[in-house]
């Protein structure tokens, strides 16, 4: 089983990113669950979502305490949340950042999702859309296939710019 924890702020689309990722894995023929952890949510507050991907049906409903992959959609969260907590030895961190950030103890990957969204004018209610481009980065990392990432995005969003943003993130993923 591959376990992923997504850190974001309320309104940044972390919950939808989890659903998109689960849908893409499902279209790859895998079993997948996406599970947001809801607190007293409000825009801007740190939130966390969980995705599990496996070849067998998934019966676990509790939170992910030892993820294989941590995704940080907003690196400013790292000042207030220990995003590396419980990360498995040899685990991976994927940052929405134009630069690597020191202190990641696993394999650190990074891509400027915000920059990609702004360049494609993918902005809703003043916020750049991060959840569709991140799927491209995850496809590059081999978590899902690129065709399934495209299919998942098209199933959930009509605007083709979302697919283009994912393809850009696929190309631009660093390290």
């Amino acid at each position: 089983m591959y376990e992923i924890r997504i850190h974001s702020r309320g309104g940044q689309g972390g919950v939808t990113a989890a659903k998109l990722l689960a849908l893409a894995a499902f279209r790859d023929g895998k079993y997948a669950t996406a599970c947001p952890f809801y607190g007293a949510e409000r825009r801007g507050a740190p939130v966390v979502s969980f995705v599990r991907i496996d070849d067998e049906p998934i019966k676990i409903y509790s939170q992910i305490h030892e993820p294989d992959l941590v995704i940080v959609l907003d690196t400013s969260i790292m000042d207030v949340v220990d995003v590396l907590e419980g990360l498995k030895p040899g685990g991976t961190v994927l940052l929405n950042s134009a630069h690597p950030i020191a202190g990641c103890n696993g394999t650190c990957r990074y891509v400027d999702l915000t920059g990609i969204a702004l360049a494609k004018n993918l902005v809703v209610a003043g916020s750049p859309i991060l959840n569709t481009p991140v799927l491209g980065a995850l496809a590059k990392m081999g978590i899902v296939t690129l065709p399934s990432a495209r299919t998942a995005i098209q199933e959930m969003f009509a605007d083709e710019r979302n697919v283009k943003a994912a393809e850009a993130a696929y190309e631009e993923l660093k390290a």
Partner: protein
Amino acid sequence: MLTIATGNKAVAAAVKAANPGVIAAYPITPQTEIVEQIADYVTAGDLASKYIPVESEHSAMAACIGASAGGVRTFTATSSHGLLYMHEMVHWAAGARLPIVMANVNRALGPGWNTWAEHTDAFSQRDTGWLQVFVGTVQEAYDATLMAFRIAEDERVLLPVMVNLDGFALSHITQALETVDPGDFIPPYHLPHAIDTKNPCVYGPMTGPNDYYKFRWDIERSMRDARGVIAEVEREFAEQFGRSYGPTEDYRCDDADVVVIAMGTLGKEAEVAVDRLRDEGIKAGSMRLRWFRPFPDLDLAGREVVVIDRDYSFGFGGVVAHSVRSKTGVTPYSVIAGLGGQEVTYNDIADFVRNRHPGEEMWFGVSEHV
């Protein structure tokens, strides 16, 4: 069709397939997505139901009572405080023998304010005459909701059915979902005592001490008959759609020395704990209790039993633990865990089994044994 969906959207999809005449509901966290999705169906013209956005849960159930007696299939959904606000009408729906289907997204009761999973809300309606089923997966939320209409409307039952799913843990998780075309699995709604303006009758009039108890006995008689109807409907569902259910979902129970009994998502997570325990040589099994009313016959002879209650009856004990004990004579190890969404992992459940003390009660996170 094969897709992915949340537990809430699965319930809404099943309601769409059953095509009720009237849906009346009031939104409440974590049920809101069910009524939002149904409202979307109605607005888009994908569902021909009359959707009544009422001003309270009490009115939601009252509207369903009127519409159901008027001769159409009805559905509502609620949770927690909403269910409690509805309470008077919940009794009335069963007493009037109306096959209303309600989804209840299990949530704790305040104060303190808490929107996470607990079963105390459903158990507070235990003695109303409603059938109660508890589901453990998104697919099961869909399947059980569809079957609920068939079971409720069967003339041997004619009692309302409450489909329970854990708040957030199941209502908001995304899993695979296969929707079906119910075809004649759901026959047209027929209520033998429906209001007929050509044959005016009085409904629910004063019923004195010489007659009232007969109506109460008739509810119990139907509740007993419901066991057979449930088995029949679940068998037919399996034949038509390939997924089978029973009063419990038994996992590796056949040769088990110790059986974990839990409900909802904790009952699914217990299966993972069972696999871990088996790897250690502990012959464990899981018996997820699906139907709570009517309460099934359980075969627990010769086994040790660990019951996880996501509820509590103050001054008495865990509701499920005491129900199991009174129905089977087995004295379980009673674990109180998961109240108000308290995090309980498969590792925790495995620990409950490893450290079991039959006859004792343990509040997880509070004390080892109390």
